[in-house]
């Protein structure tokens, strides 16, 4: 819900890009016009008095009448009025600050890592990227850290920044209000290329984000050895539906499904009496059509759902390569 701000204040602030910005801009406008008011209240009389009460040459110095040296009532008034105003400002400012610090539970958490002199981003599924794309349909939370010195993760369009401190994390979150590209700067001095340590947040539609993320995932997986890819799917480090380890042990113990220990190349007896040698073909079939052939003792129906359309070809190959390593 964008809040209307007058053109003079709007000129002083960058375009809004987050749910936080309209609230921020409203408070900023209050402060700005309040300041203009108090500035005039003080400076107007100052200029007027300075011109009005000039001392003429040779004019004798008058004693100051007591009522012009102090006045308890007036002095208490200009203690009380600012006090009330600043306490109000404190309350509003602090509430906004806490809001900006505490993300909603459903926020999509992205790790931000500053290093001299670039920003790196890690998504919850393990995708690492030098470009920051986020979907426009959900709150985004940043978990900010640093590899070396202190940086500061600053997005003017969102009105938010927080230092990236080595050894620990800081955080802020935002709800995108529109799609677009928003520059990211480092706001804490960090050495030679401090001013070049820039990045950008691209807020895109959820569909575009999914496409981009699938592409990133593919790129990432292609960089991982197949057996390692399979291991990650097995452990659930790469979430693909349920993690294999929930039902299949590696040490020979019996869980919901057969253990993977020494599975590769083994002769397995099926529920229908046939025997099968565990090879690429059988594993692919078990993943895509789990009910087709069920190992004896685990029937009558398999507890496993299909991974058709969930696992890519490369991921299936990864699982196969992983199983080969489980002796």
């Amino acid at each position, binding site marked *: 819900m964008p809040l209307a701000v007058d053109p003079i204040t709007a000129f002083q602030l960058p375009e809004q890009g987050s749910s936080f910005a309209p609230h921020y801009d409203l408070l900023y406008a209050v*402060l700005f016009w309040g300041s203009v008011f108090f500035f005039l209240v003080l400076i107007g009389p*100052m200029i007027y008095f300075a011109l009005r009460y000039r001392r003429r040459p040779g004019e004798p110095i008058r004693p100051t009448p007591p009522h012009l040296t102090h006045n308890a009532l007036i002095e208490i008034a200009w203690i009380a009025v600012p006090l009330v105003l600043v306490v109000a400002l404190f309350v509003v400012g*602090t509430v906004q600050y806490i809001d900006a610090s505490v993300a909603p539970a459903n926020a999509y958490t992205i790790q931000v890592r500053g290093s*001299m002199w670039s920003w790196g981003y890690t998504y919850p599924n393990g995708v690492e990227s030098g470009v920051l794309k986020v979907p426009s349909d959900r709150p985004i939370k940043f978990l900010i850290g640093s590899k070396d*010195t202190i940086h500061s993760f600053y997005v003017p369009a969102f009105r*938010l920044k927080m230092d990236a401190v080595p050894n620990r994390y800081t955080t802020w979150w935002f709800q995108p209000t529109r799609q677009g590209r928003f*520059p990211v700067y480092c706001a804490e001095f960090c050495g030679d290329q401090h*001013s070049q340590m820039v990045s950008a947040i691209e807020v895109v539609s959820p569909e575009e984000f999914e496409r981009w993320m699938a592409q990133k995932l593919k790129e990432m997986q292609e960089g991982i050895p197949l057996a390692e890819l399979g291991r990650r799917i097995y452990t659930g480090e790469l979430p693909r539906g349920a993690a294999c380890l929930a039902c299949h042990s590696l040490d020979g113990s019996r869980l919901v499904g057969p253990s993977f220990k020494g599975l590769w190349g083994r002769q397995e007896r099926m529920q229908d009496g046939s025997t099968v040698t565990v090879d690429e073909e059988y594993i692919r079939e078990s993943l895509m059509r789990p009910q087709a052939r069920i190992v004896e003792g685990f029937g009558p129906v398999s507890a496993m759902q299909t991974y058709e359309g969930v696992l890519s070809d490369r991921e299936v190959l990864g699982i196969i390569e992983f199983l080969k390593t489980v002796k």
Partner: protein
Amino acid sequence: MTTEAPAPATAELRGEPAPSYLQEPRGLWSWLTTLDHKRIGILYLISVTAALFVGGLFAMLIRLELISPELSFFSSTLAYNQAFTLHGAIMVFMFVIPGIPAALGNFVLPLMLGAQDVALPRLNLASWYFWLAGSALMIGAILAGGIDTGWTFYIPYSSTYSREGDAVLLALGGVFILGFSSIFTGLNFVVTMHKLRCRGMGWFRMPLFLWAIYATALLQIVATPVLGITLALAMVERAFGVGIFRPELGGDPVLFQHFFWFYSHPAVYIMILPAMGVISELIAVHSHKKIFGYRAIAFSSLAIALISFLVWGHHMFTSGQSQVAGAVFSFLTFLVAIPTAIKAVNWVATLYKGQIALRTPMLYALGFLFVFIVGGLTGIFLATVSINLHLHDTYFVVAHFHYVMVGGTVMAFLGGLHHWWPKMFGRMYNERAAKLGWLLVVGGFIWTFLPQFIMGSRGMPRRYATYNMEGLEVHQPLHLMSSLGAWVIGAGMVWTLCYLVYSIFKGRRAEVNPWRAVSLEWDVPSPPATHNFPIDPHVDFGPYDFERIDEATGLIRPGPESQRLLAAAAVKTLPPGAEEENSG
């Protein structure tokens, strides 16, 4: 106006005028070993002015670079980083902190108190030599390759990543020693004000400048040692690595920031409180009217000093300190607004129905009010913790603290310098030249820093050598405007230096009391004699009782007790036997 000292009261008291502190004793050596607070004040004045110009030179270079979004003037971003670091460090530690207390304060404080000197003259001289030693180390740091850490020396950049390690150590050592110089000055002033006030000089007869200096001195004494240990730890971290602040050794860099700002926030008030004191003097004296709410102003100085110890965390709202601490520090920061507002409003109220002489010191006071109120109101923006999230570390902050530090301290320094110049050197500066200088300085100042507020709130981060990237190039016109304004300030400063130095040699001789003020420094010759007062004075009037001015001579009318003391002194000067001692 007469240029001669008025005729002394009695024939017995007439004689050759005592030589001024400037004349006697002679020779460079006598200056370098002097214990006279006035001479030490002058030594400080020369030193801090030199620091002001060196720091200003770096500012000019910075503004030159920022005319263009690309790296244009400096050979590397490192060189730019070194320039802004030196600008900050020199201005803060070598000029602004010692500026008003050590230069102007040293000169006028004992005179205002009616004392013959500060309580610890040797420590006073030591303070100046410590300043020299600290500054020499800073220069050594420049020669050793320069420092690029920023004046705040944040760890781990300063401990681990800054490449010129020796230079960083030298600079840290320099600031450490400058800290001692500051402690010595503050300690001296507190003792002097407690123990050496002249007869009749009650606490509430002290000029408000002294109240401000007193509050400042307390800050110097209490806060500066923490800077000392912080910098010592930073040096140890840099040299050996002890893991208290350095994160790669398990330390907490945010803790360093707490330590640093525990000093450096009160230091902001070390910079501004004396300026407020000067302004209280200037406004009252040049309005020839008792200051409105003397006690409110006096106690607000103490209140500001006290609260300043509780608010340092507002420099750290985005540093990763806890939200609880953020809220607490934000609240306490807002409280500073109250005593500050009291002062501002009381100054304006003092002008009401005054008899205002718009001479240069008064113009500087009005200029101070103008820019200081802007600086103070923008401080409210930054104290509001949510607003700070966006504005922190942008040009908004840069503009804010320049409005307070330059607009506040430098203008008060210049105003105070013009105000006490006749007393210091016994000469009047050229009023017209001074008004031109004022116009250049104040005009140039507003011109330079107003655009920076807009740049900052529009998202321009500070300490950027280049701004040729997405979203920042648009600031180029504002940067250009700011840079041009900087040259106007520079011209104003050089012009001011020229006419002031000229006046020392060719200026009209100053009267004893050219402004018709009633604090005690206007009750001794211009320039004063080596021993301030021929007899220890007795005061029976307040610092702003302008009705005590004698219209004919412009001098302060003595009270009955003073007359008695003078008479007694006069009797003593008679040759022995000329008259019996009037034993009581």
